[in-house]
């Protein structure tokens, strides 16, 4: 599992656009239509996000494919709204949902993970006065990103150990050692950070 695995390299204008602008697009496409709840604006936002996504040239499947479960969901939701005689809401809800998915893809498909994190840390700078330390947050994110594969590795090891003892069907017996080891690992990492003079406020 790779947290940075979504990015599709490319040279289109959206790939080059600053992260801040992409966030603005994202919000502009999703929030107003949520508040307005009118069919035409919702459809317009869907079309615009679709066009923008097409302009990234990441390939139709990656860009537009929706999981089958979502189609079922859309059908049920639309059915419900039609049943209570609100066809306008059927359109609004379905369109907004798909817009939200496409809008987030605009960001994640065209921006490498490390760039996202740098942008986030930069965005935190104004909050320094409120006691937020962007450097520490950046370090925490780096440790978090590194810990996800580590935890999945622990899960695999623990499952092996449990299987070796024939006890692999018990959720509690699987989750407990993962969490216990996560805490042990975190304490070791904390000591290692402190020993290197890092991460102390």
């Amino acid at each position, binding site marked *: 599992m790779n947290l940075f695995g979504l990015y599709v390299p490319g040279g289109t204008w959206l790939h080059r656009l600053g992260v801040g602008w992409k966030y603005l697009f994202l919000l502009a496409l999703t929030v107003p239509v949520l508040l307005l709840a009118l069919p035409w604006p919702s459809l317009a936002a869907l079309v615009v996000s679709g066009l923008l996504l097409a302009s990234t040239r990441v390939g139709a499947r990656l860009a537009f494919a929706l999981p089958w479960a979502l189609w079922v969901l859309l059908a049920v939701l639309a059915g419900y709204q039609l049943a209570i005689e609100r066809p306008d809401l059927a359109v609004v809800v379905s369109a907004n949902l798909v817009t939200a998915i496409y809008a987030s893809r605009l960001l994640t498909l065209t921006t490498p993970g490390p760039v996202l994190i740098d942008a986030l840390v930069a965005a935190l700078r104004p909050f320094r006065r409120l006691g937020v330390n962007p450097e520490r947050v950046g370090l925490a994110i780096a440790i978090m990103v590194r810990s996800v594969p580590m935890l999945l590795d*622990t899960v695999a*090891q*623990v499952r*092996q*150990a*449990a*299987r*070796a*003892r*024939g*006890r692999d069907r018990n959720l509690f*017996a699987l989750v*407990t*050692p993962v969490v*216990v*080891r996560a805490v*042990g690992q975190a304490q070791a990492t904390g000591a290692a950070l402190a020993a290197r003079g890092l991460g102390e406020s």
Partner: protein
Amino acid sequence: MIRLDGAGVTVSLPASGQARTRVLLHPTTLELAERRIAVIGANGSGKSTLLRLLNGLVLPSVGQVRVHGLDTARQGREVRKLVGFVFTDPLAQLVLATPADDVELSLRPLVRDRSERRAQALQLLAGRGLAHVADQSVYDLSGGERQLVALTSVLAARPRIVVADEPTTLLDLRNRDQVRDALAALEQQVVLATHDLDLAAEADRVLVVDGGRILADGKPAEAIGAYLRLVRG
């Protein structure tokens, strides 16, 4: 009795993403019948992979591994009842938070009654001089105590073969002797991987693994000699 046969047992990692297919164990045919078998070799040579084949934690990509006639691929659960596995890192192996709880977990399939189970667990721990830490957190044990607890848990399930992956690293001389004696005293067949050449020298048979191949296989003196020549040139 353990057999690696078919056309020779091979373990390979399938290509995934950018990574290409990688062979962790090249075609190998083996019959392990001696009572004490040691596996030695450099870091990353394939010792752990070989050991994990023996209880079906790793499955052959080609060929078959049979333990007392059972196929590890098809009868994994039964094989794992026969084969107890001691991991290098006892913390990865200890499932519950205290030694008593952990040994009890191993006894569950064997002993129905709860208080009887607890009593047996405490008795087994006491037998290894661990009574005083039975209810302490495994995180507060020293390395040696952890390793002994792990061994106790594995033996509690009464396996017929014990496989141990570097069971004496992190241990001081006394604890190393203790784990070594504990392993030596077992009536079961023991297969262990180790970097401790003194420990390997006590085996009946030593396998030297290098780059996923059995490089030498025989009496301890010859095999260890071959390993030293390999490493120190």
